[in-house]
């Protein structure tokens, strides 16, 4: 069980949070103009990387805010935490 540094509350136990899948998948602004394939790409396709992955997390049993986490899935080391809307770290 890891410790996550919530950008609003600080370090808390993982059990206070919930993971929300891959980050930076933006809901299309005009879904009706997409083909089935394009819509399916948004709807179903998610990366599952062994290594550094960008993820959404929510502090469910805390401030209830969504934010982004950069986590190495091979060892659970969290490299960065940043708010929704902020640019992902490049390094």
């Amino acid at each position, binding site marked *: 069980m890891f410790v996550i540094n919530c950008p609003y509350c600080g370090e808390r136990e993982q059990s206070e949070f919930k993971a929300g899948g891959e980050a930076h998948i933006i809901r299309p602004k005009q879904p009706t103009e997409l083909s089935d394939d394009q819509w399916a790409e948004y709807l179903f396709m998610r990366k599952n990387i062994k290594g550094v992955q960008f993820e959404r997390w929510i502090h469910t049993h805390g401030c209830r*805010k969504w934010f982004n986490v950069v986590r190495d899935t091979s060892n659970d080391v969290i490299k960065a935490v940043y708010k929704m809307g902020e640019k992902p770290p490049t390094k």
Partner: protein
Amino acid sequence: MTKNLRVKTSKLIDETYKISFKFNGSTYYGYKGDTLASALLFNDIHLVGRSFKYHRPRGIMTAGSEEPNAIVQLHNNTSRTEPNVRATEIEIYEGLEASSQNCWPSVNFDIGGINNFLSPVLPAGFYYKTFMWPASFWEKYEYFIRKSAGLGRSPTEPDPDIYEHKYIHCDVLIIGAGIAGIVAAKTAAKNGYKTLLIDEKPYLGGSTIYQNSEHFKINNQISSSWLEKEINEIKKIENLEIKTRTSVAAYHGYNFLLARENLTDHIPLEQRNNKIRHRLLKIRAKKVITATGSLERPLIFNNNDRPGILLSSAIEKYANFYGVACGEKNVLFTNNDSAYETALSLYQKGINVEAIIDNREETDSKLIKETEKNNIKVYKGYTVVDTYGYKRINKVSIMQLSKDGQKVIGSKISILCDCLGISGGWTPAVHLFTQSGGKLKFRDEDQVFIPKEYSSDQISIGSCNGDFTLDEILSTVPKAIKKFLNLKKIDYEDFEIKSSFNKSKRNIWLLPSDKILGKTKPFVDYQNDATAKDIKLALREGFRSIEHVKRYTTTGMGTDQGKLGNMHALGIISETTGSKMGELGTTTFRPPYTPLTFGTIVGRSVGEYFDVSRKTAIHEWHVENKAEFENVGQWKRAWYYPKNGENMHDAVQRESKAARDSAGILDASTLGKIDIQGTDASEFLNRVYTNAWSKLAIGKCRYGLMLNEDGMVYDDGVTTRLGENHYIMTTTTGGAATVLGKLEDYLQTEWPELDVYLTSVTDHYATVSVCGPNSKKIVSQIIPDLDFSDKNFPHMSFKNAKIGNINCRVMRISFTGEHSYEINIQANYGKSVWEKCMEAGKEFNITPYGTETMHLLRAEKGFIIVGQDTDATMTPIDLQMDWIVSKKKYDFIGKRSLYRSDTIREDRKQLVGLLTENPNEVLEEGAQIVSDIKKTPIEMLGHVTSSYYSPNLKKSIALGVVKGGKNMMGQKLVIPMENKQINVTVADPVFLDKENKRLNA
């Protein structure tokens, strides 16, 4: 007792304190400080159990938690009975009752022992190969396998003990209080770190604490005396907490560890009441020092499992610590110097050592010289080829090893004995290290895996790091701690060490015999009866991965997780396949390190505390009026209210009829309520519901369907516009939390520009729903100031009102199809409003009804229940609810998915009504629906989702999902049941009042 096997005891055993206990029905005694194992050995009992597969007699093998054989059942047939307890760990107490497991009728005469003679036909994977075919026979085989297998019996009565969980935060956690752990604890604590030291044993000091030999000295003191002083010192340090009888079960990432503190297992039963038995410690440590020591390896040779065969280090511990001789004629068999330590300890205590058989041909050390000086015969370059004695070893035969160690040569020599100590060198206890995500490396010189890369802020020190000898430990440990804790100076810089141990070792994973392998039984995993032969068979059959070989042969899969034999299994695989040990990998060490009780895992969360239960403000009334309850999520909901001994069916029929004939009342408080405010509230609802919301007038209510982005129905409920920028949304009882979560997600991540605020107010309001033709008469009595005319207060509208001087919200909405009102009031007035309604409704026979009647009434109207009539594969179109999907709105959650190629298929499962040919026949929910049972394979068209007998329609009604059902109106289908077929007709799902006349009646 005929023999006196108690030699001079150590300081650690209190000879003045006698304790009596029972083993297999007979009474024995031991001393305070004894484990069950040491007390049994003192009573000359070696045979303790039978092995799992062959039911071979097995004895005590070790003196610790790695014990594979001596596992017993405690207090059989009582509520405190416990299986699989290691006799080597349990401390004896007055009244302890233990019995052997895995044998019937007794450990001395065991029917299953026949398997031993059948063993040529019971090879690895035997159960898989034989009993899996034909598949239909499995049930019959299983009965016999379960009966003859099984490790002990679980209790059948509730556990009388108390368990709890505790969080601990510390700067430095030290696991293991051997010499390395003690040095680490003192250093960390004295340098200001908040330190926690834990050890699974009841005492501190590991194996050094009973090391009495002149051959191992620290600063000119015998190592145990030196350590004793250190222990006395650390006990006085304030910021050091010490926990004994505490074993770390799991080491997770980020230095999060679970440990079990054992508080009462060592005291008599009658003293345990109202005390906490086990405490699960949830430890978050900034730094962890692992000092878990090492486990002695057995040697793998023919018949290496007889009672009386122990690890050499165990024999030494029984003699030095417990003062018990494991035998009167001891033979030791080794490939390294450890057995000589044992031999000298025994000699010192006057216990006879017949011989030492040493694999090594040319070897010399101070220890060996000393041994030979004491006239103990040493056979160098020899191996044991066989052992004899069924229930206790009585003889070994030995032969000379060939140069390459693969064969035996020369003639056989027999040596009589009653105890054989074996030593195959040492395996660092890296289990916790690897659990934490650490990577191992293989050290060729002594064939051990040692820590290489740490995954968190931690180090391994002492023999779990591969530093086995006293001089190695004391030269490496202080340096490692100094660096790890960033210290400038450390107390333990200078030592004068005397350590006579020579590290040479001759490692042969599988020792040769004069017989061919097929005729021998060299056990690798004692508990599961896996032999070297089985492993080789698995390799011949094509298994290569260690994980596969492990499962196929069951090596390492017992309650001891193969702590003794796993290395040998790896070694044999590597030798047989010609791959290198380091490259083969190891099996994964999974938590828990030693088994945990279920009690420890659940802690206080038992009985009524197992889960949170939520009760409405009106709950007490339901209890007083004898309602039966059902769980809906965490809510306790009134299910039905049986009267005069009614069964559920009769009660529900009565309630359903009353609600339609006159008046019914339902506690609807559990429905989720979300308060929505903000200038973009209407736009927000437009985006999350399938229908349009912008034009909903203030004071009006509307039913909404919420989809997932994949187009599937997610939740439903009525939302009311309270003001220009203010709505109250209701959700299903079970969906309240997830709907709120989903809405928050979209607001925070996709549409942060919307000015919308969400607040969960589910618990703030009690909701009383009154329905039926007389509902208006009842509700208007308790809210006399409100104009209840259809013109002022039509269906699907809302009014602010007052009951007395308490504000409430009244909605005229209906889930039953009847004219009805929902009164929402501050929760603490809920029960009083309910009682007022009951009072006012008396003359109309107002009838309280529960969830079952609610379900029946809505089914008569064809209203769906999300989660019962839908699963995550139903679109609104599948539900024949096209009317609620806005064609005009540009977008809403899930819209695009409604015309994917898959969602527009005509043959999707669609919701339909079902009427049985026989109107009295009620279908079973979940029953399959088919069209033709003669054509095979029979195509499954769908299933029944809701089914009731309707007292209002006087016939059976059902809802179901059927492939292409929308176009099958009037068609006949079949529900095949176990012993009959039920004919049904596809019908409109709205069975009652399709014109909605009753809503305005």
